[in-house]
């Protein structure tokens, strides 16, 4: 029997830049196939070609052994390829069934047959075991339910290949388990699943095969059973783990510089943390575990319902974010485009913003001296290794890695005591990562308190002296030194021993 999907020698160029070169990919019925690689490795481009968004520059695509050309998402859907992208394509103001039939509404005479739509949608959702009322408006659904609607939409179009792009990125643990149950059932029914994810820990549950991509090339397709996490990371990055993560010296007697006491906030249910100088505190957990929100709550970025926060012994509970930051905190947000940088401003100007309060930049009459600002921001640019030409350029035109360096540079503008890095290397290539880790090392070894919050398990495990594992809005484990092992961490990801709800 011919494979469900067979892609051979797929190459895709964008404006002369190769996003994919000569990639082969095969998917059998009932197979769970994970695409694994760094951001920019070509995973998204590959599935975009399979789902009809892009056409390959060269290479062939066969479905059920028949060579095809897909010119649109609709054509791909007609061939039985359903894709759930990270950004959902649902219309929030419409109902579930209207969304599922969008673009292929059944008609009765000149009118849309709403009853047939309702019934058809209900049937598909029931068959999938999702239990969503089809008359609900999509904007009223949770993120997980919206994903289910996307999946149901694909199956309504009789999908035999289901592509899931980072489906668990915003799901809670319970929702994730439901999704995995569904994937297992779909596989048993002969549906081929293509699954993009960074979470190695998930692979054991869903994958049969893993294809590793790097820089637009297929490094290899390996069997999920016989490949360790370490091997996968080394395949993905092309270098050994020891070369990437530096050894960071730890100060044993570091004073507590920030303390969070019994904090409750959205998705955070009673968390106490001491942040100590000269130490890297790692924070791990699944999305929705509260690992990031506890800090956002403490910094006033989301409302704090209960709890106390103090910085260097001063109570800062409930103060506006800007005042808490003034107490000596640097917060690196996880989303650099949305929260981190002025995208149309130059790297210089981005770094200059936190420099404005420094006494050195004051010129005559209390006006700001642009010369001195430039001098200082250039020095910071050197320190975070952004070249002078890039410093002048609008941030939007820099690569993700360089943007992240600029964001780190903002942290060097003031001499803070506490550095909180929320996803410090998201969407950043390995070379830049290693550079950013060296910066984190410098900061910690200068006696500052460093917090690293990350969904990248190897990253937090290798950097942290002390690691907090979050589960369901609480700390489920505090690990130190040799007890920081993957097994230990993963075990506590799903702990709900203290969960009474």
């Amino acid at each position, binding site marked *: 029997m011919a494979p469900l999907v067979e892609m051979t020698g797929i190459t895709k160029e*964008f*404006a*002369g*830049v190769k*996003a994919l070169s000569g990639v082969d990919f095969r998917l059998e019925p009932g197979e769970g196939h994970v695409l694994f690689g760094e*951001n*920019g490795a070509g995973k*998204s*481009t590959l599935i*975009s070609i399979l789902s009809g*968004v*892009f056409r390959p520059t060269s290479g062939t695509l066969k479905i059920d052994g028949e060579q095809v050309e897909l010119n649109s998402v609709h054509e791909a859907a007609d061939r039985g390829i359903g894709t759930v992208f990270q950004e959902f394509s649902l219309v929030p103001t419409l109902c579930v069934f209207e969304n599922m039939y969008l673009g292929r509404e059944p008609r009765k005479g000149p009118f849309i047959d709403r009853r047939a739509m309702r019934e058809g949608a209900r049937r598909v959702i029931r068959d999938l075991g999702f239990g969503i009322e089809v008359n609900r408006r999509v904007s009223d659904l949770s993120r997980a339910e919206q994903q289910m609607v996307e999946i149901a939409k694909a199956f309504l179009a009789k999908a035999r290949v289901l592509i899931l792009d980072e489906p668990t990125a915003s799901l809670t643990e319970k929702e994730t388990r439901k999704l995995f149950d569904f994937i297992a059932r779909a596989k048993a029914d002969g549906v081929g699943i293509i699954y993009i994810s960074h979470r190695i820990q998930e692979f054991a549950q869903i994958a049969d095969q893993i294809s590793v991509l790097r820089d637009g090339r297929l490094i290899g397709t390996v069997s999920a059973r016989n490949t360790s996490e370490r091997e996968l990371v080394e395949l993905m990055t092309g270098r050994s783990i020891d070369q990437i993560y530096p050894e960071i010296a730890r100060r044993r007697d570091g004073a507590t510089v920030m303390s969070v006491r019994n904090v409750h906030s959205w998705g955070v249910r009673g968390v106490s943390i001491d942040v100590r100088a000269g130490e890297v505190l790692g924070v791990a957990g699944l999305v929705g575990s509260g690992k990031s929100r506890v800090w956002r709550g403490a910094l006033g970025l989301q409302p704090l319902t209960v709890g106390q926060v103090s910085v260097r012994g001063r109570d800062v509970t409930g103060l506006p*974010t*800007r005042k808490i*930051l*003034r107490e000596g905190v640097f*917060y690196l*947000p996880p989303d650099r485009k*949305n*929260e*981190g*940088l*002025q*995208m*149309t*401003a130059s790297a210089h*100007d981005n770094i*200059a*913003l*936190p420099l*404005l*309060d420094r006494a050195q930049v004051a*010129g005559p009459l209390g*006006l*700001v*001296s*642009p010369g001195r600002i430039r001098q200082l921001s250039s020095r910071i640019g050197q320190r975070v290794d952004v070249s002078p030409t890039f410093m002048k350029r*609008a941030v*939007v*035109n*820099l*690569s*993700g*890695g*360089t*943007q992240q360096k600029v964001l780190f540079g*903002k942290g060097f503008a003031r001499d803070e005591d506490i550095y909180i890095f929320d996803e410090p290397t998201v*969407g950043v*290539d390995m070379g830049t990562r290693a550079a950013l880790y060296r910066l984190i090392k410098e900061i910690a070894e200068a006696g500052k308190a460093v917090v690293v919050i990350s969904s990248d398990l190897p990253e937090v495990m290798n950097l942290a002296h002390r690691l907090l594992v979050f589960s369901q809005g609480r700390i489920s484990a505090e690990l130190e030194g040799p007890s920081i092992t993957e097994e230990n961490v993963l075990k506590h990801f799903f702990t709900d021993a203290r969960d009474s709800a």
Partner: protein
Amino acid sequence: MTVSEGDRAMANQSAGKPGGAAGLLKELFLRLGVLPFFLVVALIVFALVSTQFLSLQNLTNVARQSVYLVLVSLGQMLVLISGGFDLAVGTTIALTSVVSAMALVALAASMPDLVWVAILLGALAGFGAALLIGSLNGLGVAQFGVSPFIMTLGVQSVGAGIALFLTGGVPVSGLPVEFGNFFGFGRVFGVPVPVLFAIAAIVVVWLLMNRTRFGAHLYAVGGNLKAANLSGVHTKRTLFLAYVACALLASIAGVLMTARVESGETNLGGTIALESIAACVIAGVSLRGGIGRVENVVLGAFFITLLQNGMNMAQIGSYLQMILLGSLLILAVIFDQVRYRMLMGNR
């Protein structure tokens, strides 16, 4: 997002240097917007239509006429850079005019010997009224998160209503002649007084935007509010002050216009909201906030006045002028979109 950012950066780098005249024009467009192109076209067209157009006397005249629009556009620019806009600038002018004129008439009557004190206090009363308008806008936008469109549109109606209510729709006349003679028609060292005010305002706003924390904060707030907040910027205060400063600049224009027409009028500044936004957008101020330069905006306001002057000389009727001005604004916004897309990377 399917193309990696690294790739896009590379693509931009290669696209950034096509070389030759086309590349130079593109660079100019990205840097300054459409203004240089519009200005060149306008100068050529009007110079062909009228020989008088490029005469020193006419250009001086345009400079003097453009003062009011320059002042308002500077204020409008502050608000646009913050990521909003102010539709209430016209009302601010009208209310300033009415309030300052009424105060001035009353004060001049009660202290006939101290006419300059009366003029000063009258102008201050006008500024006070503008302060109220600006604070209202700033409070609504910064504190309560009302969209700038609705907030300033509402305040525009409120202010116009107050101005009409105060005067009953009748112009306030009987202003002391010294007021009009100095602020409207006076000259110091041969330079018209309104021009001096405009020059002072340009210098102050330039310093504000390029040499103070407030300016840097304003660019940051307009560029990315969340990032500014995380950099320790007091975002609400910055937004609030932008609207207040805008109103005050408009109100200076209001006092000068009142002196020019020698009465307090409720219909002053009727079209200036449109004109000032057009001046800013043509001068490359982004409607998305965060981008805009003082010197370009001054040139933009000058350009709009030049255009009106040129159209007058070419004997284009005022109705047709309205059509052209509106079209020009839309055209400028379309170019702004194109430019933004080019700046944000090719899609």
